[in-house]
């Protein structure tokens, strides 16, 4: 019942068309009532300069959060009994449009500032040392759910492939055309896992088969699913939601 509500509420925000229209109307609508009183002297055609200030504040908040980020601070972990069932599905599309990736032919592509760019098959990834966590997934929409994910500690994997960990960013490209990126400090956090299992089962497509990067120190949309390739870079890679105005760092 709860999961159902969440899907419905997500649908209200996700459809691309509505969203793009909404974006254009964003300030005109937003300012129309709540802020009219306080900006009544301003010309509403100043939309772009207001947006510039808001974007600037969002970049400032990126820096504040990077400064606040403690690489040794662990996200709280929970007992199995605390796991949310069913764990809600969430994406920018509905659950019946989930991407099916062929596991047999799958290879994780590596690019950018990485020494060994050899692609990885699923059996190779599954054979790496695995670890589990039960943590709270917090959505940018406000709701949260506790789940159990298992996989490779991402910092171990980065060391194994010879990633340049002095670089600023790691970017991800996903099978569903989603993309995102994280800062290196978060990528190296001990609870950041490249996961292949949910609740001890191979990740079902709706939870991101063949893999999801689980980052309990970031909001849910910073946890990419169906990852096809990753690259290490010093150039800001952005992201699907980030490029539309969601805060890039989005740390928890």
């Amino acid at each position, binding site marked *: 019942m709860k999961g159902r509500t*969440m899907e419905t*509420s997500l649908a*209200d*925000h996700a459809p691309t068309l509505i*969203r793009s229209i*909404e*974006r254009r*109307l*964003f*300030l*005109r*609508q*937003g*300012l*129309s*009532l*709540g*802020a009219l*009183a*306080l900006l009544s002297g301003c010309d509403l055609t100043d939309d772009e300069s207001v947006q510039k*200030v*808001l*974007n600037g*504040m*969002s970049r400032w*908040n990126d820096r504040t959060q990077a400064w*606040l*980020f*403690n690489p040794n*601070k*662990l*996200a*709280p972990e929970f007992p199995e009994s605390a796991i949310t069932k069913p764990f809600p599905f969430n994406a920018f599309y509905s659950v019946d449009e989930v991407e099916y990736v062929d596991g047999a032919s799958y290879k994780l592509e590596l690019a950018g500032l990485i020494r060994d760019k050899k692609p990885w098959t699923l059996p190779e990834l599954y054979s790496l040392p695995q670890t589990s966590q039960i943590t*709270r997934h*917090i*959505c*940018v*929409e*406000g*709701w*949260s759910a506790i789940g159990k994910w298992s996989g490779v500690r991402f910092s171990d994997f980065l060391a194994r492939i010879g990633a340049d960990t002095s670089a600023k960013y790691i970017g991800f490209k996903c099978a569903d055309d989603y993309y995102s990126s994280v800062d290196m400090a978060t990528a190296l956090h001990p609870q950041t896992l490249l996961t292949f299992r949910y609740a001890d089962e191979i990740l079902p497509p709706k939870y991101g088969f063949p893999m999801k990067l689980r980052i*309990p*120190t970031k909001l849910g949309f910073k946890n990419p699913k169906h990852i096809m390739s990753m690259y290490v870079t010093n150039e800001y890679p952005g992201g699907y*939601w980030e490029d*539309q*105005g*969601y*805060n890039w760092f989005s*740390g*928890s």
Partner: protein
Amino acid sequence: MESAQTQWVRIHPLVVRITHWINVLAILVMVTSGWRIYNASPLFPFRIPNELTLGGWLAGALQWHFAAMWLLVLNGLVYVVYGIFSGHFRGKLFPLTPRAVFRDVLEALRGKLAHEDLSVYNAAQRAAYLAIILCGVVLVFSGLAIWKPVQLQEITAIFGGYEGARVVHFLAMALLVLIVLVHVLMVILVPRTLPTMFTGRSRRAS
């Protein structure tokens, strides 16, 4: 109009007036953008009409909310530090007894509350202004608890965890909005209090 004999009494210090109006702006942005954020995943079985919200969609509302939080907190700090160290709080908000609050609220409801001397707050006003300050403190801390449930998890734990902090954040907002509505209603009923919040002074009661 002003004769040489007109006596003025200073009732609102400059710092209080400036921080009050900056706070009006900050609270207006925080509440209206917060309502839009609430609508993305309502905690309770109702939504806020989108026409009353700021931001246009979730990302826009979040941008407003996390920009205006700096204004709210920095301005609030100036006000609270000033209030404590200048003796403003001690002189204006205290003493405050439940009995006096009860009496003045009853009188206000009967329309009998006296407002001759605007420089002295009655007990109902003192309670309301103190409650607003406390709401602000709770809103800031529950907000930090929601924003940073990992990095500031000690604060989140005070509210019984992330979901508890969401509930507290909402309830503190609701109480604050309620008090502000009563506050604005009282200004409408006693309109000569409004100019004093700009000029800081009022004619001495004769």
